[in-house]
């Protein structure tokens, strides 16, 4: 099992009972990369409004993913291999002003 700290912001926390952070333990054989983690979140953690997280089988546009406060595009994006203790953030971009 891998222990991860998940963080949700910019409104995404609404999908997780308004919890902005949660610790999860995921099976390391089936949840190896962030791509796997997204699928795990979709199937295991989200109860409703899946469209706010997933669209056309992948993360919906307008969500910034961070691995330990670094844009996932700088660290292999969805192929990033999760490590024990990683902080993975999903932040919805804001448009209001």
């Amino acid at each position, binding site marked *: 099992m891998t222990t991860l700290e998940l963080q949700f*912001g*910019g*409104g995404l926390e609404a999908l997780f009972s308004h919890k902005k952070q949660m610790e999860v333990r995921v099976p390391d054989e089936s949840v190896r990369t962030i791509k796997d983690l997204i699928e795990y979140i979709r199937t295991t953690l989200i109860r409703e409004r899946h469209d*706010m997280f997933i669209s056309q089988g992948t993360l919906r*546009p307008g969500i910034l993913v961070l691995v330990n406060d670094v844009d996932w595009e700088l660290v292999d994006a969805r192929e990033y291999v999760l490590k024990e203790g990683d902080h993975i953030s999903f*932040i919805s971009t*804001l*448009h209001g*002003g």
Partner: protein
Amino acid sequence: MNGDSNPSINASDVERYSRQLLIPQFGPSGQQKLEKSRVLVVGLGGLGCPAALYLAGAGVGTIGLVDRPNDVVEKSNLHRQLAHSEARIGTNKVASAAIAIQMLNSNVAIEKHESFEPKNAVQLASSYNLVLDCTDNVASRYLVSDACAVTKTPLLSGSAIGTDGQLTFYCKTADSPCYRCIFPKPPPSSCVGSCDSAGVLGPVPGVIGTLQALEAIKFLSCMNLTEDLDRRMLLFDGSTCTFRTVKIRSRVNGCDMCGESSQLEIPAFDYEGFARGGKSIDKKALDV
């Protein structure tokens, strides 16, 4: 102030700006650079009000103001849009903000623009040293960024909703991302909240707009500080009064706007349709 008295800052201005002239990294040369600067504030709402007022207070030479053509001050704006007033309900927001700026600092030259649209965005952005995105909707955010990307105009982009805020630089250097580099596709419209639909506590855009002014002043006066919000994004959680800064990607070569083979033509692009999620750029279609 600061030892070297400077002939090009007159005595009245020295008094007005004395408290910032005292900051060593700012000083008279910073003041002169500010006074020669031209900043465009797009949107005179919860972000644009404090941003424009603090820029005016600091003595930015020319401030351009633009909002939607028929956006007038409404009563529901007043809890967060401090440049306006009860007496100016019904007044055009650009005109109302211009009055507030003049009352605070009559030295500032104000340029009022009718609209920021695909047909004039590039020309508008190109005539300023810095643009502040203080808009409140997806279509405008893509348009402001595209215009800044194509004209290589640095863009300070703020946003806020509920108790959350975000702030970053786009298009600051040749390596900086534009908005499309980070968000190539718009979110589904069902996932987009606005302050009008989802609500906002007034000081939340207040904090972000004030920080936009601060970052603008530092940038325009060339304070040469060690770090800024280029390729870094500030995330503000007003519910806990906490902030974090995260690292974001550099310019993306394949970006639809600032990438090497971009074919996006701003005047012809349907921003409203794109933002509604109806249309996204289909490279293959363009190639045919």
